[in-house]
């Protein structure tokens, strides 16, 4: 962003202006940042350097965070529609698995780290950011509380499908949402997402007591 501004300044000031601009600190270009990052990280375990190649969404949301300026509404709409269109709903039409397994998935923060063994079963780490079952006091607050999620919303088809899509790729609803794309990025399997769905929506789940 800043580099573009500098270039624009340089172009408008033509040759004379550029000579003096260059002697000061140079704002890095996006390409320079990616190059510097790639030279600064090592491929270890499942974490390869291609994780530093940003998607259009990641780039747009990085700039939005850095500048404090919201996304252009058209860009936002395009990113969200693309995310939503790619949500894969369960082929068998069954959305709810086992809430007990869902609770274990919500507790586990393993998976996709460079330190993880190859066959690590990934968790959803929901409690890192959300209150889920009130019995677990050690929860974060980056995301909203999910206590009584199903009790408050019911389990209509619309709610069930919305919840599935939100877990699959939350960027379908808010392009720059902090929540990882648990389905889209392959963090959790379809079966695991069903279990987390049950934790949130099953009437028997402690979350809905």
């Amino acid at each position, binding site marked *: 962003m*800043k580099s573009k501004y500098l270039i624009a300044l340089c172009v408008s000031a033509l040759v004379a202006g550029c000579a003096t601009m260059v*002697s*000061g*600190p*140079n*704002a*890095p270009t*996006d390409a*320079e*940042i990616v190059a*510097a*990052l790639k*030279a*600064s*990280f*090592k*491929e*270890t375990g499942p*974490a*390869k*350097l291609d*994780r*530093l*190649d*940003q998607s259009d*969404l*990641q*780039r747009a*949301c*990085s*700039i939005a*965070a*850095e500048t404090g300026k919201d996304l252009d509404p058209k860009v936002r709409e395009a990113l969200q529609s693309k995310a939503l269109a790619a949500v894969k709903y369960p082929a068998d039409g069954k959305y709810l698995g086992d809430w007990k397994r869902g609770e274990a998935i919500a507790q586990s*923060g393993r998976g*996709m*780290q*460079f*330190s993880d063994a190859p066959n690590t079963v990934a968790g959803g780490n929901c*409690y*890192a*950011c959300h209150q889920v079952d009130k019995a*677990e*006091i*050690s*929860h*974060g*607050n*980056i995301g909203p509380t999910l206590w009584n999620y199903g009790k408050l919303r019911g389990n209509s088809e619309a709610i069930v499908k919305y919840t599935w899509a939100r877990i699959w790729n939350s*960027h379908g609803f808010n392009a720059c949402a*902090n929540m*990882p*794309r648990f389905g889209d*990025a*392959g*963090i959790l399997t379809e079966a695991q997402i069903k279990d987390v769905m049950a934790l949130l929506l099953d009437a028997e789940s402690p979350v809905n007591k």
Partner: protein
Amino acid sequence: MRQRIATAFATLIVATIAMPLLAQQDTQKEIERYRQLLADGNPAELLEMRGEELWKEKRGPKNASLEQCDLGLGPGKVAGAYAQMPRYFKDADRVMDAESRIVHCQVELQGLKREDVVKRPYSLTQGERQTEHEALTAYVVGLSRGVKVAVPQAHPKEKESFLRGEKMFFFKGGPYDFACSTCHGVDGQRIRLQDLPNFQKADNAQRAFTTWPAYRVSQGAMRTMQWRLFDCFRQQRFPELAFLSQASVDLITYMGVKAQGGTMDSPAIKR
């Protein structure tokens, strides 16, 4: 110190309540251990002493000590130096954080091989002795206790390091789409029960920057700022941050500038 213990204790009490019932017995044992550790002060003080011995010992092919190491305030001046780093060093023609500069001095003054020095900077396995790098860093940072953070920004390369660090701080990537700013850009955020400093607020940035390196009671080891970033990126699902890499130095510059004016209080003690 007393206040630190009180804070640590408050954290413990919260952690105890939060533990599921089954884990309560183990927790009790752990708390006893914590109590004993905290009652004796910060174990990092021992590491500072070991670091001082290492600093003054003649070692390496050149049979030299590190006493003439220039940490930015001139050869032999360690007191207050950490609080004014990262900074630009003319002899290396680049910006270096304290940990980079310590390694630089080991190579230049003592003639040690760089690849040997950087091979295993952190003591990562349970019960492993703290590394020489951790000891030397503990000594150097300890001599900045009470000194105000004043990370220089006069040299163009220092400014560039900050600007790169700023971009990297907001850089979203990886399968989780996380940037540093995802967790460290908003007030009052927590992961589980851990409070997260918001680097856009001076007081938050100061509290974080001035208390690293820190002795982590839960790990039984002192951790350096390079380790802090390495472990953040692990949880961010990025690849492995290389020790002393450009990105590590740039991010430390960014954090240091955000923390200007804070008072160094490291090695601190944390949960």
